[in-house]
């Protein structure tokens, strides 16, 4: 019996936990490096600080991209982990995650655009400095807007992932419930004014749910026996 279990595919829970951890580390580092450079509603101050700390800003951006790459890998890994619970739902969830990542990455274009606008190219002298600064700040606002669109997709990702965890039998139900609640929270981004009002609660809940899930995967992993049982059942059907 043990030999059979050995021969069965193993869920890579620790690997997933590790990729999750790397995502969190890079995402936080990227945000930390860029933090404080943007002064909302003051175009001149924002652009002066961006240009003064261009290297810092660019490194923060690059690390943010790496964080996105980790999250794409994570999406694929979660698909494999939850395939035995429900293949179709796991597939739909993965697509939400994937499109969400693609939108975040594309949104990054608007984080970089200010450097182009303020780069001092000759042809841009058709605008005066204040106008260029305002354009650059507008671009940063577009980035936030793109980010909120991605959050709507991540809302559905969290809802489905939370449900899959809840039904899994190889992970505890609590992170599943928390993740579903976080999904409901991110869903407020379909109506941006509501999202702005509730933002700090939603971030807190979302962060808590995801960090708990990451720690569990990293420290405890999954119940391998249960996972293999589910994998066998789903294959036999």
């Amino acid at each position: 019996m043990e030999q059979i279990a050995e021969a069965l595919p193993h869920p890579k829970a620790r690997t997933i936990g590790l990729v999750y951890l790397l995502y969190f580390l890079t995402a936080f580092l990227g945000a930390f490096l860029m933090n404080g450079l943007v002064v909302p509603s003051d175009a001149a101050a924002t652009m002066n600080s961006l240009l003064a700390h261009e290297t810092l800003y660019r490194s923060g951006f690059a690390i943010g991209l790496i964080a996105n790459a980790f999250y794409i890998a994570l999406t694929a890994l979660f698909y494999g982990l939850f395939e035995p619970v429900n293949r179709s739902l796991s597939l739909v969830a993965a697509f939400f995650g994937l499109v969400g990542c693609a939108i975040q990455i594309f949104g990054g274009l608007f984080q970089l655009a200010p450097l182009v606008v303020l780069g001092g190219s000759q042809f841009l002298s058709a605008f005066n400095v204040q106008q260029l600064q305002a354009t650059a700040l507008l671009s940063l606002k577009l980035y936030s807007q793109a980010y909120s669109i991605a959050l709507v997709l991540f809302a559905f990702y969290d809802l489905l992932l939370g449900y899959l965890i809840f039904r899994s039998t190889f992970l505890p139900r609590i992170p599943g419930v928390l993740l579903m609640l976080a999904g409901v929270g991110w869903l407020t981004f379909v109506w941006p004014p509501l999202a702005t009002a509730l933002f700090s609660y939603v971030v807190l809940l979302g962060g808590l749910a995801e960090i708990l899930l990451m720690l569990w995967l990293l420290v405890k992993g999954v119940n391998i026996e249960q996972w293999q049982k589910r994998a066998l059942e789903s294959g036999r059907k």
Partner: protein
Amino acid sequence: MKGRATGLSPQIYARFAALLYLIVIAAGIIVQMGINERIVVDGDAAATAANILARKDLFQLGFTVYLIEMTCQIAQTAIFYILLKPVNRNVALLALVFSLVGCTIKTLSRLFYIAPLLVLGDSNYLSVFNVDQLQALALLLLNVNNQAAGVALAFFGISTFLNGYLIFQSAFLPRFLGILSMLGGLGWLTFIYPPLGNQLFLYILPVALVGSLSQIVWLLAKGVNVENWNQASYMQTSTAGEYR
């Protein structure tokens, strides 16, 4: 042993796919007819801007409906893949990928739909532009939204055509649905050259709409031929040796 590759009955997938498809189509029509036509005045930036500001909530609602449309379309893409995979896995995968790329582009295009609110909001930092310029920028952004959605349509054209081919080849859905879907797909494909797509839009739209609606009605009322679907699915798993 009668093979069943997936746990759920294909009938549930069929109904769910139809429902999502219906929401996608209804959402597109609602925003276009109910909101955009009341707010956007072609070529008149000042009137468009005035309408957006006067009906800010309505405009915001258009964005919300668009986002709901996109989430439904992503889920619909996945379910159509599951439903049509037994016919030919590779073609179904191709259709899936094209549709997913289309969904990503279309979702992104909505960033430019909501952007006019950022430009026309009374932010202080934008006062370095005069009002005419901001209004022109707002209309320009709305046009970019249209252009980007047009790019997405070309990708949907390919996936709709491929799905039509799969329906045509399948033994569990009637062939006329496949033919209609292929015709609609070819129509959307004209958006590869946007001037052509825009010029033919009024002819393409009814064809595509008839195709989509007949698919929705059929899937809701009849669903798929379960026996034939199960057989196709079983044949595929046993020939691919994918028994796990």
